[in-house]
């Protein structure tokens, strides 16, 4: 069986990473957060290095390591930072790093869609809710943290389960990934055959002239999507040149074609999901009005009891 990594190195890295995660989770008294982050990074680093040792010729681009470090480090901070607002900001950093990984995987459209939809829309909603639903700090302690943010629930058990899961996932993955059959190379510009308006003779001629491929007295004859070539007829007969770069099929076109041609039903379902979410959110926020009176009542009670937030908590049944 072909292992992509020495199993000893893999389990060592995962154990160190698990220890680090366990140490980094928020705790009330002793809080070795820096040690935890260092240990976690070391563990992940050992696994990635171990992956590189066995296959030095097929390593990913070095940008991968930068983005992976930012992604995993900031997602570690998302779950360890005691303040929700910082956790959300670190999440935006994680989104940007994974958009970088998408770019490395030549998924340009999804990378930018991810930044626009996640960092631009979803995370702003989170930030609004964090601002709406945060307890007012009491007067004596401006920087008060809520009780439930300071202490993690059963960090040791959680880290143990998580890393046992990760160990089993990666063991299977690294044993099987080496045996994956290499996929057949598809034809790059085959989609052009289905987009007749995109490769009209005028457009191709204009494009060829712009890059200086088409000289005086030559004319465009035909374009073959299957071989990504253009045939040009000149004075001394026909010659074949590759399709100009601006005429090649772009990532956005491929995704759009796949989306609308291959999954029209899924788009409808996605629309229904979004509609349902909108209806649900509307219904939920209509209810909020009823609660507002109650909250006002409580607030006035608390004020009349002349107490801080803590006093108000005791008054309530």
């Amino acid at each position: 069986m072909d292992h992509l990594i020495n199993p000893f190195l893999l389990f060592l890295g995962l154990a160190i990473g698990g220890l680090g995660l366990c140490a980094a989770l928020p705790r009330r008294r002793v809080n070795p957060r820096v040690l935890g982050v260092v240990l976690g990074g070391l563990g992940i680093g050992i696994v990635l290095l171990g992956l590189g040792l066995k296959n030095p010729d097929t390593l990913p681009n070095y940008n991968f390591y930068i983005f992976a470090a930012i992604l995993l480090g900031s997602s570690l901070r998302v779950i360890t930072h005691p303040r929700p607002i910082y956790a959300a900001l670190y999440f935006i950093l994680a989104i940007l790093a994974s958009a970088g990984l998408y770019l490395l995987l030549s998924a340009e459209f999804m990378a930018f869609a991810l930044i626009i939809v996640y960092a631009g829309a979803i995370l702003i909603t989170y930030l609004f809710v964090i601002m709406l639903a945060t307890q007012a700090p009491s007067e004596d302690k401006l920087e008060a943290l809520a009780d439930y943010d300071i202490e993690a629930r059963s960090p040791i058990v959680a880290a143990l389960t998580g890393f046992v899961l990760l160990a089993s996932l990666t063991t299977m993955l690294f044993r099987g990934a080496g045996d994956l059959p290499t996929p057949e190379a598809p034809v790059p510009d085959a989609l052009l055959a289905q987009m007749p308006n995109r490769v009209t003779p005028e457009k191709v001629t204009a494009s060829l002239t712009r890059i200086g491929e088409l000289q005086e007295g030559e004319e465009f004859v035909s374009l073959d999507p299957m071989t990504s070539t253009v045939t040009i007829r000149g004075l001394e007969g026909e010659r074949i040149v590759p399709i100009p770069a601006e005429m090649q099929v772009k990532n956005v076109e491929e995704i759009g074609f796949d989306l609308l041609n291959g999954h029209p039903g899924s788009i409808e379902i996605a629309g229904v999901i979004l509609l349902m979410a909108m209806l649900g959110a509307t219904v939920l926020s209509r209810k909020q009005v009823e609660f507002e009176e109650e909250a006002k009542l409580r607030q006035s009670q608390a004020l009349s009891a002349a107490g801080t937030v803590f006093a108000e908590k005791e008054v309530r049944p």
Partner: protein
Amino acid sequence: MTFSLGLTLAQSGFPELMAASTLAPYLFVSAALFVIGLVGFITRRNLIIMFLCTELMFQAAGLALVAFSRYHLEHTGQTFVIFVLTVAAAEAALALALVVLLFRKKDSLSSEEWREMQG
């Protein structure tokens, strides 16, 4: 040991086939991200952070989808990330409306406050 010191992030033109051992680090990062989100979901007691952790897990799934789509040079994986984004957006809208509602009721974001819901 040959490092590919390409200075550009994205290659121009159609991508080439990728070795399975180049795919593996991406899948490892995706799995690690999923586990970090899972551990966060279990350990944190703040409702908002718990939902942030589910978004981390969505991210991990998306990364794996895009990595496999790159490996097979097929675009269905990337198309699927669009649906993952849709579900994440719907989930965020609903969950956050709920969180605000729950906060109004108990004046606290702690998940332990809703212990009686465990049936």
